[in-house]
């Protein structure tokens, strides 16, 4: 078997669609074989997921923002696998503003903005810590950002078990619930919040402008293609690595604030068991978008629809196993895993073709 670069690449949108269909097909088979799930029921859950924008909205907003965040660093060929840790740090910072400052009672609007901004700063700092050894020592960012996710979880765990342990929590280990003033208002008829919607629009336009019209954006894109050119042009490559990864963490951090203010309202111990895994799922979104900013919301919608479908399936037809499943994550994981794997494999055929060579 030999793989040859195609003389003319296939249109870029074909692969995500094929991968999606193939991944769903594989998931249906896996669910049928292992759980005896009827394919019709699985497919109807998927249809449900895709046709309920209002239900999907919350996940959609979060995943689009994470997708945009990761896109910035991926454009620079800096593989930020640390979205999860950056979100967790954002969650921590937002919680601090909401529970341990007087701001929510003085000016709720300002408090909400501060939660988001501080979450971004915290996410940015956490990413910066991974960026420094990458930039100056050449330490691969993939294991570093990944490992730092766990360090972030445990830092927050220590806080929640220790100084941040709530006073009105019965026997649960968790923080107090944030004041009602800083619970983000919901957009009627949907699961998303106004704060999330505005943030999404601002970040989308901002990143579009950054990548298109600023020297930082141009340099991040060139960093991804040929850092040697930056070097010979007199632009510091380590600095650009730091900028790309820090901006990525900065944007991802905001999702921590959205998760707190629009979803969970408190941190429960252990945080790693209560995360929505947006940092990991966001990687799927960024990859499915083929690193095209315009395609990020589309990819995010697809993934969040599948996410919803997994949960819906469990509610509707999980049967006796459904009671044992927690939060439908298993089915979601099967969907996400098989689509992403199919995508990863199939992406090759857009640029390469496979020739079988028979040995004589």
């Amino acid at each position, binding site marked *: 078997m*030999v793989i*040859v*670069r*195609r*003389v*003319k690449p296939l249109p870029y949108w074909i692969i995500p669609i094929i991968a999606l269909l193939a991944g769903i097909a594989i998931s249906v088979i896996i669910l049928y074989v292992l759980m005896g799930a009827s394919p019709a029921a699985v497919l109807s859950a998927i249809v449900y997921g895709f046709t309920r924008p209002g239900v999907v909205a919350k996940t959609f907003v979060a995943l689009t923002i994470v997708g945009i965040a990761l896109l910035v660093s991926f454009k620079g060929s800096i593989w930020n696998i640390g979205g999860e840790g950056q979100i967790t740090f954002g969650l921590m910072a937002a919680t601090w503003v909401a529970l341990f400052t007087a701001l929510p009672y003085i000016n709720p609007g300002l408090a909400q903005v501060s939660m988001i901004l501080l979450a971004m700063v915290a996410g940015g700092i956490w990413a910066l810590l991974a960026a420094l050894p990458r930039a100056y020592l050449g330490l691969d960012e993939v294991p570093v950002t990944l490992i730092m996710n766990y360090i972030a979880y445990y830092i927050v765990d220590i806080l929640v078990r220790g100084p941040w342990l709530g006073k009105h929590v019965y026997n649960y280990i968790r923080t107090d619930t944030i004041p009602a003033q800083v619970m983000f208002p919901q957009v009627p008829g949907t699961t998303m919040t106004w704060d999330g919607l505005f943030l999404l629009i601002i970040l989308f336009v901002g990143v579009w402008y950054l990548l298109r*019209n*600023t*020297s930082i954006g*141009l*340099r991040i*894109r*060139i960093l991804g*293609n*040929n850092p*040697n*050119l*930056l*070097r*010979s*042009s*007199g*632009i*510091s490559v380590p600095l650009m690595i730091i900028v790309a990864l820090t901006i990525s963490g900065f944007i991802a951090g905001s999702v921590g604030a959205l998760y707190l203010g629009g979803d969970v309202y408190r941190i429960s111990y252990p945080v790693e068991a209560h995360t929505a895994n947006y940092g990991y799922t966001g990687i799927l979104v960024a990859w499915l978008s083929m690193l095209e900013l315009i395609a990020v919301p589309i990819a995010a919608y697809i993934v969040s629809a599948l996410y919803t479908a997994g949960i819906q399936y469990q509610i509707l037809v999980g049967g006796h196993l459904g009671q044992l499943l927690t939060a439908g994550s298993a089915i979601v994981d099967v969907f996400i895993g098989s689509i992403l794997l199919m995508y990863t494999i199939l992406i090759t055929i857009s640029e390469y073709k496979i*020739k079988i*060579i*028979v*040995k*004589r």
Partner: protein
Amino acid sequence: MAAEANNAKPTFLSPPQEGKKPIVSLRGITKRFPGVIALDHIDLDIYPGTVHALLGENGAGKSTLVKVLYGIYTPDEGEIIINGRPTRLTSPADAINMGIVMVSQSPQIIDTLTVAENIILGLEKYNHFVPVTKVYKTIREESKRVGIKIDPGIEVWRLSYTQKQLVEILRAILLGAKVLLLDEAITYLPIEEKQRFYKFIRRFADEGGTVVLITHKIYEAMDVADKITVLRRGKVAGHLDRKEATIEKIRALMFGERSAEITYERLPTAQPEPKTILEVKDLWVMGDFGGYAVQGVSLEVKKGEVLGIAGVAGNGQKELIQAIMRLRPVMKGRIIYNGEDITRKTTYYLRVNGVGYIPDLPAKYGVSIENSIIENIAVLPVYSRGIINWDKIRELTLKLIKEFEIKTPSPDTPVKFLSGGNIMKVLVARELTVATNLLVAYNPTRALDEATAIKVRKIIKEKVLKNKVSAIIASEDLDEIFQISDRIAVMNSGKIVGVFPADKAKREEIEHLMVM
């Protein structure tokens, strides 16, 4: 099979059979890459006991052809016939099994492994789980016989370039090579070492082995080859016997209808002004592998002159150029640009103060091929700080495309879709525009075919003359140095060993200084 041959014979190989049947034949070999046909129906016969040179300029398809022969590439069409039998080669392991071994320009042996580990990897007679020390004895014996001194247990990163190439050869012999593919393997060796390799090649062929020598240097082919095949634009331009080959004939085959354009006569000499633009004083710079690559170099470039730095690869030119561009730390000494000490300044400072830079391997270091022409121009800090004014840069790009006759559908075309010559023009156009004061270049035309290379040299020199710009150009190609320089400095082992006005410099003297 390789191992048996290696066990039984006291000499390199069995004597050549009479009747002269080709050991390797290629029939209609074709290989396409996006945008190019690298090999276009190549037919070739290689006979045992001969040294067969494959000549061609950069981009003629030599390297692709060797990679096909070594199983790295599989051809799209055509047949490889080895010992009369059609054969599919899908990996180097296949080729090695057929007795074909390649030694390439950059040593393939792996730095973190020992010599013995590198060698045993290809030896089929050892099973996977034997200890590597099993092969030590064989290596010691064989290396003594061939006349190479090497410790099998030493890690490769401790060896010099020449030693690494020797290990490659030793490896080929131990693999029982019948056909030795030398892909520019000796082109970059110092002269004395080259002579040793020539002797070895001769002996190998006399004992019945076959050598395929891939080179773009006509002299190298004339020195050792029995037969010469010239490639041009992916096709066989002609086959020659050593006896009938002359430089003129080969040139005509190599460059075809363009051979008339290819002249190495000097470009017009500049009239420099007394002002010194660049001054380097007693400069010491470290190389990549420890040790000083630049050892106390001092030189001067006047306003409006081109200083050429001649030298064999690896004599410190690369490090000197990088130190001047502030891409490599200076351990001792000073660099003064335009009256200002820049020894501790950054590349950025130079780039926004009138210095243009054409690095070695331009496609690798000078442009980003995935980005468009306009983006490749906008990246320079003089053009983009903060928010980019795309309209202004587009205007500039269009102007450069016109002025330098860059062939492209649009300024937004990714550079990878341009031909090598046009990519080079993008780079040269950009750098000459920012080089209002000084142009620094290293092997500025290495990857180009000759006709384009000469055109690019002309463009550079014209600009220098017209705008009174200074230039320091290091090149491993002596033709280039002679053609473009006003003064020539010769660099050897990290030192400047002579400076000559170009119009009075003698080629023999400079060549002598380069290898002394």
